[in-house]
């Protein structure tokens, strides 16, 4: 039997109100369908608000010889050719138009001398390509999208968490969730569902990610039968804060290096000269993160186990204008004045390259009616994402997902949701209150973070990964007995109990995929297989749910079209 619950009906339901979700919503709305957006936090607080450094688009405002081809090449090289080339192409071609559109909706970027959008250098980009607003680009972007969406009339369900996707036979029929505030349940009926829920950083201990990054969207899609692809590729951003302990992991934007910041070890050596003499501090994130980690492991780290990042050779006024929030962040949280001395930094879990496998043009997953975009979708970034390529990803594929989801909805009859599915979803949510004596979800979460941090970090080995897998399995058993106290009224312990299930599912997928990939590529470094392997370069790892267990299979990389192959050859140094 199901309890009384409210029901809402939309043509397109979007889960997540970050850049991807809002852009999808705006586009779907423009197609004249009924759109609902659900998000776990208040509107405007999604991760996108935290993005700092900028948005990558080959507008060629600063470096006149930049164009989409160069952006495409950089993206493919950064991703070690595991990218879906079609996505990389569409992304590079469409990003400038999406940025201009954002500006026409009211966003204000920093300017060049002659009144164009200013662009800055970033790791792995061969030209000055990142459009930015000081170091608060994400805030500008989300506010612009949020206000446009609200003005156009999207219905937003804030502080509402989705816990299950509902199906009608093979296809999507909607979603089930609860209001964080009162704990009441809610059912959304929809012909198309777009997952824009972001990443999974909260499964690691040292992370730049917020409480929302528990991999819900990935787990929801997986449970509904969708493929998850390239899950071993988790990005560790090279520069998170390392001291004091309370701030560990908070991001230090790559814009610091983009504006001229230099990395040194405790002996004052500019160690990037050893690891990437050409690009130095502006090498790709995988390389810089591994380099810092190596310096620390070999005893050349700072007192608190990191490296020094110094921009104090630039004029104080310049630093305060270009990096205002970094200036305040260090002054207020770490008593460090970055205009006078170096920051102490170290790698922090930051971004998920893997995710829901989607079609490049439409963002549709392997489940009819289920779409995904933004950090929750896989493909664009391959084995390693370049900085700034996420914000542009959100706009390009958010728009495409919204468009395709609306078209799908227009062609589809109204689905039905049988009450059994709903009753089951309710029962699952209420169990932790009913069983007595189990563990606290916080304790299990801490252990999961410890396992992932120690065993599924920057450097991986077969032995560690096997240990992690058995650790995760034990935690899964313990989670099935978890107990929560209190009422359903705004109860974070209860919310975490549900989030843990997503985190464990995704952690298992990451670990299994990492175990299977016997090579080192991009963000995935196997000490026992330190080299790139051409055979593995032609394979994606895909996990899918079969008869309630996680199955992993290899799937060939889509062959690149000849004209694009030519593009990659044309320039020297194709590595």
């Amino acid at each position: 039997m199901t309890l009384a619950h409210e029901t809402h009906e939309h043509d397109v339901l979007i889960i997540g109100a970050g850049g991807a979700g809002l852009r999808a919503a705006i586009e779907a709305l423009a197609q004249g369908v009924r759109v609902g957006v659900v998000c776990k936090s208040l509107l405007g607080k999604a991760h996108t608000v935290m993005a700092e450094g900028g948005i990558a688009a080959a507008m060629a405002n600063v470096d006149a010889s930049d164009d989409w081809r160069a952006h495409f090449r950089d993206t493919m090289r950064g991703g070690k050719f595991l990218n879906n080339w079609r996505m990389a192409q569409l992304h590079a071609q469409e990003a400038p138009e999406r940025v201009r559109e954002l500006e026409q909706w009211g966003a204000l970027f920093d300017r060049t001398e002659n009144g164009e959008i200013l662009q800055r250098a970033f790791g792995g980009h061969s030209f000055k390509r990142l459009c930015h607003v000081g170091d608060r680009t994400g805030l500008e972007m989300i506010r612009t999208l949020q206000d446009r969406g609200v003005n156009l009339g999207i219905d937003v369900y804030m502080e509402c968490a989705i816990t299950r996707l509902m199906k009608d036979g093979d296809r999507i029929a909607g979603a089930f969730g609860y209001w964080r505030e009162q704990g009441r349940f809610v059912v959304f009926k929809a012909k198309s569902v777009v997952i824009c829920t972001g990443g999974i950083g909260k499964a690691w201990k040292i992370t730049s990610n917020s409480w929302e990054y528990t991999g819900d969207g990935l787990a929801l899609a997986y449970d509904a039968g969708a493929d998850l692809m390239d899950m071993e590729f988790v990005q560790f951003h090279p520069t998170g804060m390392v001291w004091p302990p309370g701030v560990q992991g908070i991001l230090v934007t790559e814009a610091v290096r983009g504006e001229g910041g230099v990395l040194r070890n405790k002996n004052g050596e500019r160690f990037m000269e050893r690891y990437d003499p050409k690009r130095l501090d502006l090498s790709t994130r995988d390389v810089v993160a591994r380099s810092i980690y190596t310096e620390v492991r070999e005893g050349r780290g700072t007192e608190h186990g990191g490296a020094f990042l110094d921009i104090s050779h630039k004029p104080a006024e310049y630093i305060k204008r270009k990096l205002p929030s970094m200036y305040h962040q260090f002054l207020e949280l770490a008593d460090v004045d970055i205009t006078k001395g170096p920051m102490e930094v170290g790698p922090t879990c930051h971004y998920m390259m893997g995710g829901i496998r989607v079609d490049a043009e439409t963002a549709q997953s392997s489940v009819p009616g289920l779409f995904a975009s933004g950090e929750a979708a896989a493909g664009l970034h391959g084995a390693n994402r370049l900085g700034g390529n996420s914000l542009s990803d959100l706009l390009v594929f958010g728009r495409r997902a919204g468009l395709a989801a609306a078209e799908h909805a227009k062609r589809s009859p109204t689905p039905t949701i049988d009450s059994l599915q709903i009753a089951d979803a309710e029962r699952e949510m209420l169990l932790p209150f009913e069983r007595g004596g189990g563990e606290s979800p916080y304790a299990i979460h801490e252990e999961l973070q410890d396992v992932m941090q120690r065993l599924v970090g920057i450097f991986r080995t077969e032995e560690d990964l096997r240990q992690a897998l058995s650790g995760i399995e034990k935690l899964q058993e313990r989670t099935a007995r978890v107990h929560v106290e209190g009422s359903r009224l705004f109860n974070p312990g209860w919310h975490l109990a549900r989030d843990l299930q997503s985190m464990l599912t995704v952690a298992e997928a990451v670990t299994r995929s990492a175990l299977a990939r016997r090579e080192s590529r991009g963000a995935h470094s196997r000490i026992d297989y330190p080299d790139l392997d051409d055979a593995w370069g032609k394979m994606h790892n895909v996990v899918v749910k079969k008869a309630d267990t996680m199955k992993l299979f290899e799937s060939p990389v889509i062959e690149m079209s000849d004209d694009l192959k030519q593009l990659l050859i044309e320039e020297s140094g194709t590595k």
Partner: protein
Amino acid sequence: MAAVPMAETTLLVFRGDRESGKAVEYRVPFAPGMVVLDALHLIQARQAPDLAVRWNCKAGKCGSCSAEVNGRPRLTCKTRMDSLPRDKPITIFPMKAFPIIKDLVTDVSWNFKVNRKIPPFRPRPDVEWKMYQRDVDRVQEFRKCIECFLCQNVCHVLREHGKEEEFGGPRFFVRVASLDMHPLDDVSRASVLKEELGLGLCNITKCCTEVCPENIHITDNAIIPLKERVVDEYYDPLLRLVRKIRGAGRA
């Protein structure tokens, strides 16, 4: 990490809902550099798993973690424990101007309703898309707003007089300023400011400016110029025209 013997801190945290509530005492270990939000998370993890708190970025960027710490409205993620006197308990209460949902979480949905009253950005027709840094700089201050609603929380028009129906509050004056002073915007929001957002009710006490974690000079740079604008438009259309032309000439 070196094993430093840890001192303890006592916190008095409001626990309760709309019906009833009281301050409850918790003791947490004190670590260097710790912020109030860290202490709240420790309480959640070890002592009160159902303690309701909002947060997202833990870096002063999202504006989710607002509360009243020792009676002062602040972001808990940017309030260092070592900046507070430790000889007496640290009190942590929810924002007072908004209805309590539970513990430190308040119902701020009213703000989202106010926002809907504001006419969006609309560029001048046939505008050439060029802007210069000096014109953009003028607005950037207002666009830094992270919507923590601390200014709304201290404004006496809302906090003491409960004028939510007539008054939009400092956050939305900042918002209007960010649109109005956009170099290419072509909308007049004077009537909205006057009729719907009740700008006239603000008597420039500057309490809002004092609490803004983004150091936005809400009163001097947003509210006062907007008040002048309303006056101009309502009482001196000629002056308004002159200002518009001068403003455009500067670009």
